[in-house]
């Protein structure tokens, strides 16, 4: 069995790890340690982590059925049943939901790519580069998502001309870009945290073998970071997916606006609860597997971040 380097026999119980930057002494109870670890993770993602349980889905379904049943009872026999109404609107809502997912995937892709470079820039040894990257990261972390969305909707041009080709930028593209900005900032923090959590011995031994800084970063440090970055990255994606409903406020048609349209066309305001719970159940069905997989990965890689 591999003994943990640097720790003499018998000082720490099996599986116990000290907190980042903390002591070995159990001064405070496990609840405090769990809290501190959670804080470190949340600080990277910038938002509280979604913790979904299977019974959440069951509960959503239950409430949906109750609300539907209540409305059904109120409505009387001459109107079509709730299940019929919801079933009739489901294809449209499904298209809307798929659109939400598409926006989240695209925003995540853009944000992740730029975020990695921004994160590495924060660690650059050139002071101006590091300072600019730090400022950009914290600027976009401190701005509310809705304000950034508005900013992009209004200030990005509605068409862009590159090399003589005019590309129209529809609303949803601008909104996606707006969502990718906080993702980029949080990804930058995740990358910076991951790189800084690699023991300094790795950098030292690479230097003693005369690897250049770029070789060290890309061949030795970053590959070790990928496993550590995966759980917070996936948490960020869950939060982003739930956050795509914000684009409805800036006028992009997604599942929430479509639900509102459906309600308006049905002219039955009492259908609001069943509809919203129905959509929440979909979000749950999408986010829950991601959340479980994240927990699994966190346990598997069990690294001190």
């Amino acid at each position, binding site marked *: 069995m591999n003994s943990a380097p640097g720790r003499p026999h018998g000082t720490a119980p099996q599986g116990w790890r000290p907190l980042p930057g903390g002591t070995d002494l159990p001064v405070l109870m496990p609840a*405090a340690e769990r809290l501190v670890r959670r804080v470190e993770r949340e600080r990277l993602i910038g938002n509280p982590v979604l913790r979904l349980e299977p019974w959440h889905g069951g509960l959503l379904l239950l409430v949906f059925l109750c609300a539907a049943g209540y409305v059904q009872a109120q409505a009387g026999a001459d109107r079509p049943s709730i299940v019929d109404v919801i079933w009739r609107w489901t294809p449209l809502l499904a298209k809307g939901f798929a659109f939400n997912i598409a926006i989240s995937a695209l925003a995540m892709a853009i944000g992740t790519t730029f975020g990695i470079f921004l994160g590495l820039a924060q660690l650059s040894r050139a002071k101006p580069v590091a300072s600019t990257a730090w400022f950009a990261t914290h600027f976009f972390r*401190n701005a509310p998502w*809705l304000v950034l969305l508005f900013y992009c909707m209004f200030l990005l041009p509605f068409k862009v001309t590159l090399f003589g080709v005019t590309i129209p930028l529809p609303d949803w593209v601008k909104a996606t870009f707006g969502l990718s900005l906080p993702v980029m900032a949080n990804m930058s923090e995740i990358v910076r945290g991951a790189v800084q959590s690699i023991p300094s011995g790795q950098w030292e031994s690479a230097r003693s073998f005369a690897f250049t800084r770029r070789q060290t970063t890309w061949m030795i440090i970053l590959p070790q970071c990928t496993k550590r970055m995966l759980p917070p990255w996936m948490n960020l994606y869950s939060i982003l997916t739930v956050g795509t409903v914000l684009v409805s406020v800036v006028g992009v048609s997604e599942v929430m606006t479509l639900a509102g349209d459906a309600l308006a066309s049905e002219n039955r305001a009492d259908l609001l609860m069943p509809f919203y719970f129905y959509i929440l159940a979909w979000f749950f069905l999408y986010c829950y597997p991601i959340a479980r997989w994240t927990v699994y990965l966190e346990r598997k890689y069990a690294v001190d971040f």
Partner: protein
Amino acid sequence: MDAFFEWFRWLYDATGINLTIFYDAFDRKRFIGGFFTTVRLAVSCILLSVVIGIAGAWLQGSKLRLTRHVVYWYIQFFRNTPPLVQLYFFYFGVGAYLKTTGGVPLVSNVTWAILGLSMYAGAFNVEIFRSGIEAVPKATVEAAESFGFSRLQAYRQIVLPLAFRVCLPALNNNLVNLVKTTSISFAIAVPEMLYVSSQIWSDSVNVEEMMNVLLFCYVGLVGLFVYAMHRWERAMRVPGYGG
């Protein structure tokens, strides 16, 4: 002071940068009103959510199963649903039933915003405060009592300060997030900074200028808050614990 404002009128004439919030008294009043509404919203939500957090943490230790369950479900609901949807529920859903006979809503949209956002943040606070209280070992209270502290004194002098210091980073995260989330109340027409700015730019047709001002105001406000909380957290840190 007027000369300062008039300079912006000159700026508009000279460069086309139209910052009506400076030289136009009406827009200026609106924007400042919106700014202070945002600040008031943030402060009210912070205070109310902390109260909810303390109450919830205390109730979670209750002997009655029903109380414990109610708190638990409250947390689960408000934690795992988007705050925007929560606001819609309160304002359009519940608010639709809370009307006087004349059709006038009993609860204003600002009140719903404060209630909704406080309950959202309060759900996280309950967990944070609970962890803080559970963080201090009973042995510490026993040790204090063996030195002659009464139970109340032990709580006041040792347990609560320690629990508070453990909670502070998590609370910090949560409150910063809350301040940013107050911008969502735009969706229910609360006249906070974003909403007021949208009114100004549709009146004065100066979208670019207003968007930039808005962005910088928000980032500045949140940044200031982050800085203050960071300083406080550093001052309150338990050395050697939690990096």
